[in-house]
């Protein structure tokens, strides 16, 4: 394994920034992290790879990401109003592939949510495709593989 510490640091900085935005519900800034063509995907089957032709928990293109954020922000969703907060930890960050214009990253995440006084924990493996651009990384794809997928989720009114 060839180590590229500088790349790991800049990728980690970007992903921690994203995690911080989401935990603090800075959704408008979060939308700016994406490419126009990017997809936010939460698969419903862990071994699925053809996301376009299979049922996912979320499969958001640019338009759906904006609608999802709007739903969380406009005060109309009673479940979104019940999310008192999320705290996510990301770790085990590994650069899987790296080229001049793209970096693929895999990491472990645990997201904790307090909902109606009950702590719910979501462990997940998250895979990123990040495009390099003049003003830093942009997310081309984010796939959140929740351990709960194999069993049953509680309803989710935040962004992983």
């Amino acid at each position, binding site marked *: 394994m060839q180590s590229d510490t500088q790349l790991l640091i800049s990728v980690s900085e970007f992903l921690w920034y994203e995690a911080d935005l989401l935990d603090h519900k800075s959704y408008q800034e979060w939308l700016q992290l994406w490419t126009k063509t990017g997809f936010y995907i*939460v698969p*419903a*089957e862990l071994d699925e790879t053809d996301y*376009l*032709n*299979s*049922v*996912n*928990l*979320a*499969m958001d293109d640019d338009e*759906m990401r904006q*609608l*999802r954020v*709007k*739903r969380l922000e*406009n005060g*109309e*969703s*009673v*479940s*979104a109003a*019940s999310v008192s907060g999320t705290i996510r930890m990301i770790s085990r960050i590994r650069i899987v592939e790296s080229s001049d214009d793209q970096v693929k990253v895999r990491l472990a995440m645990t997201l904790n949510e307090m909902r*109606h006084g009950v702590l719910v924990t979501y462990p997940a493996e998250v895979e990123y495709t990040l495009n390099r651009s003049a003003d830093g990384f942009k997310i081309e794809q984010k796939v959140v593989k929740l351990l709960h997928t194999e*069993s*049953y*989720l*509680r*309803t*989710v*009114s935040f962004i992983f």
Partner: protein
Amino acid sequence: MLEENNLSTACRAASMVEEGRIHKQLYSDEAIFEAELDKVFNSTWVFIGHESEVPEAGSYKTAWVGRQPVILSRDRKLQLHVLENRCRHRGATVCEKRKGKSKSFTCPYHGWGYGLDGSLRGLPKEEEYKGVFAKSDMSLVNLRHETYNGLVFATYKKDIEPLEDFLGGAKKWIDLFVKQGGGYPLKVLGEHRFNFPGNWKIQLENTTDAYHFPIVHKSFISSLDDQTADIFDFLDGEGFVEDLGNGHSVMVMIPELTDLEENLDEPIPERFQKLAEELRQEGVAEPEVKRLVRAAHGTGFNLNLFPNVSCSMAFFRVLRPVSVSETAIHHVALGGEGAPEAFNRKRIRLHEHFQGPMGFGTPDDGEAWERVQKGSIAGPDGWIMVNRGIKNLHQSPDNNPAGEVCSETGMRAAYQQYKKMMSSTEDK
């Protein structure tokens, strides 16, 4: 003794169902929940799945009758079987996967192997059973099962009426529901799985509750284009809820989407223009484009089949009682077997938009259901009201009682069936 207790508990539960209200204790009394498993789930036809979920010889999926694990399998002669998921030796489950393909089911404990039809095929050190039992007596327990238009049901009640008689007035609506394959056989495309901390009957009520839609699903409606949002503005429309007998009911929200093979000449709505264009590019001729686009919507009604499935507009919503205060739900997405990819893809995207634990609709439903469970604990006494529209009934063309689209006619139908079953003294 247990049976006796269940009987008196069941009678107590039955007395908590009145014509227009049910006692709140029906959501939280553990003894009543145990009695329900026996008197309701073990005593009727329970939805297991759709035939397309086990398409080939060797296909299987695991499912439940009430709390009991079963396997739906298809054998080499393509016959379906519903098997208890319990080894006849020491009781271990013989299959833990949600779905798959296999030639047999093997118990992990001592290696007993069963065929897809449940027959015991082989076991290690068989000679020790010589003179003890015949292998043919030790098959996995087969449940009686029947299929209607692709929907598979099973039952523990041996002398129950045929499935078609049980479905009765609901059959016509199943026939309409399966038309959303767009001219292709209906096919399961995938599913969402989630649970909520509440009683199963809260979910049973929800799929025949149009009244909540503009309130709970305001954020979903806001995410639609104006034309589609108008379609979902149905409370003042011509819709209705009809009691179909045996606890079944249909809630027609969008009457113009009752029969998806009618009105095929209507212009393609804005929201489906892109789909129509994709279909044309796939080489689909214009009449079929129109038929597929119309089917892509799904139907404009929810058909509630007592006790555990709703054919809900464009998908199956299957409930499973886990405990008195926990219910698991599967939202099963549907499309057409062999239909153009663009059609099935659009159906999947529409499913994801509203349904499932991360959809724009379901999380708000889940919040409301959870609140019902929590709130219903308040006070030593209290009732859940299901009397909306009870004085404004009319007779449907099929001579059934029907109310306005946002009436609670369907809930009353389900609860009267529940009452009948809970007060039954009949042996299984």
